[in-house]
């Protein structure tokens, strides 16, 4: 904080040669990242924005068509379905994922043996290739050889073809998403928890607070900036879900594919399966707007519950 204050009010004076030299060094240091960002983020973003007003064929030849792509988007028969699926996905996976990560993080924050072992285990899904994860889960949910069905049948239930049934396919993908997100979120939450001063807990213990009270009255409020971060990034990630669906629900052979379509799958289908890249660009701009609005709402809403002191 102290340093920032100094920077916030710089003493006004002419920059000396030495200052300029320092700045130059600074610019050189940030150049690799900046150039990378400009080439791989800013330029494609602008190009994509431009493409959304064009008819772009498979080979990236663009013809200006004004708002035609957006007009088509609002007549898209699958748009509502895709938005509904995306919303369900986000609303289910983010809170449950957060709850589980909080639980695991607080368990690992206590004094038990082998915490680093457990941390590694829980973090493993985050460092595993998503393709490999999807394939393994596909086998788990397999209708004939999957252990999921084997377990259900062992308990006397009736197994089914989970990934090809439209009503259960999205649920399977969500289970994988939650499983995969717990480790990463846990690490972030754990870092936040360890930044909370022990003196609060000691004081609370002296005052006779139980573990529940301590968790809800001390840990959660003091952790709220971290929780907020996890929710924001989780939401953005959820709205962009694609790879796990694409890997687990095959677009050419799985009869459930059309029913589990999310916004990003709709985008992929138009851009890379059909070659309507201009229209796909419009879909992605639409998604950008939605994610932006939701994030702004969260930014405003956070004033009510996020505690930065």
């Amino acid at each position: 904080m102290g340093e920032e204050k100094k920077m916030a009010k710089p003493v006004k004076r002419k920059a000396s040669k030495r200052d300029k030299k320092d700045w130059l060094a600074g610019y050189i240091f940030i150049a690799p990242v900046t150039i990378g960002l400009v080439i791989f983020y800013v330029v494609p973003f602008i190009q994509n924005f431009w493409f959304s007003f064009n008819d772009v064929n498979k080979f990236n030849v663009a013809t200006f068509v004004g708002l035609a792509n957006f007009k088509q988007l609002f007549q898209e028969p699958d748009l509502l379905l895709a938005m509904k699926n995306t919303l369900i996905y986000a609303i289910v996976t983010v809170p449950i994922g957060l709850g589980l990560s909080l639980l695991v993080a607080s368990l690992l924050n206590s004094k038990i043996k082998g915490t680093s072992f457990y941390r590694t285990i829980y973090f493993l899904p985050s460092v595993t290739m998503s393709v490999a994860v999807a394939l393994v889960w596909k086998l788990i949910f397999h209708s004939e050889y999957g252990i999921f069905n084997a377990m259900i049948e062992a308990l006397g239930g009736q197994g089914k073809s989970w990934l090809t049934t439209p009503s259960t396919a999205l649920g399977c993908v969500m289970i994988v998403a939650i499983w995969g997100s717990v480790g990463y979120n846990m690490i972030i939450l754990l870092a936040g928890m360890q930044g909370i001063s022990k003196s609060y807990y000691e004081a609370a213990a002296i005052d006779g607070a139980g573990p529940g009270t301590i968790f809800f009255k001390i840990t959660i409020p003091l952790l709220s900036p971290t929780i907020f971060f996890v929710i924001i990034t989780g939401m953005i990630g959820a709205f962009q879900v694609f790879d796990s669906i694409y890997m687990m629900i095959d677009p050419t052979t799985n009869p459930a594919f059309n029913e589990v379509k999310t916004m990003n799958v709709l985008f992929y289908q138009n851009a890379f399966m059909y070659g309507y890249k201009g229209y796909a660009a419009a879909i992605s701009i639409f998604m950008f707007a939605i994610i932006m609005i939701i994030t702004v709402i969260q930014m405003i809403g956070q004033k009510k519950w996020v505690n930065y002191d």
Partner: protein
Amino acid sequence: MKKNLKRLAALGLTAVMGAAVLTGCGGGSSSGGSSSSGGKESKDGKVELTMAVWDSDQEPVMQEMAAAYTKEHPNVTVKTQLTTWTEYWTKLEASAMGNSSADIITMNVLHVEEYADAGILMDLTDAEKESDLKASENFPAPLLNGYTVDGKLYGIPKDFDTNAIFYNKEIFDNAKVEYPKDGMTFEEFRKVCEDLDAAGLPEGTYPVPVNRNSSQTTYYASVYANDGYILNEDNTEAGWDDPKTIEGIQPWLDLVLDGLSPSLEQMANTDPDSMFQGGQVAMYLSGNYMIPSYNKTMEGKYGIVSRPTFNGKNTDIINGLAFSVSAFTEHPEEAVDFALWLGSKEAQTIQAEAGVVISARNDCQDIYVGTHPDLNLQVFLDNVENAELLPHCKVTSELAQVEKTYLEQAWMDEITLEEACKKIKTEEDAILEKMNAK
């Protein structure tokens, strides 16, 4: 505190921005696609050509052909660029316009029209006329037609594939059912399936898988044999609702509905190809290009007989690849010369002897038959004269999604085939109209 808030807000916004870019990146920027080097020319006049291929089984043969060419033309070397099938077209799309694609492009019938229209492929008509290739004499007509767009030749036929019944001998032996025979009628074929079923196959084993998306190996051929059609000649109308088309598909679908084939869901969980190799289906209709794969897992344990005839005709679907030349190549002369050479007897003999694919050239087809003496490969050649090309147009993949949506419902017995075909017809006609309006 305020500072912290601002910082977090900035972080959040950056994340949103990043989010949009991630999705946007694919929206058409070519920066995402990896670019590949075109031809390189060094000071001593040596030319290096690149050739894009997707089949790792075929890459060694392509390299062998390239080496033979270099022997005759020491100043030209050719490097193969392998991209897996799933990424091949995406990568080619991205690199084609940036003229960073390979000089020689392996092309298939489904894509040639689109690429020719976009001006990505070089017109080889004149070069072929001036050469001694004599394409019209030396290659099967359906293949040449497939690579001729608006009267211009865009590819030198490389190979072709036709289809047959592959059967697992062990399953037939265990069930004590006679092996299928060449030239069965569809009714006889169905009888074999019923016999297998009646003989009591082990649980989870089926007579034959008929998948919704197996049109190339199963129902397209019978649609044509029955005088039905999928797309009309000038690609303006779909033929799905034609009663003759429906009659050609129904008997195949009946195999599924009567339980002689695994269900659509089972085939979505395990693809029929794996089922065949895993001994879960007694027969499988497949193309000759699968032989190298099957030989890895079940060499000697399977046999091949010709497809069942339909309506008295042994129509089959032919599909084949060709060598095309990029319109943006830096070495047009060398690239065209190499492409033409790839159609020569010398080149196609090298290809045929490897036994991976059937060389397109008429005088090299027989070589293939001898490459796997234990298999009756002649059936693949017998089909050529009665073969039809896969139906194709510029929006093939979009039509495929329509077909998927409704045929799946018929495959799961939710609607009748007739209802499905009517819906397909309506939606496809709309798509075709849009395509033709452009």
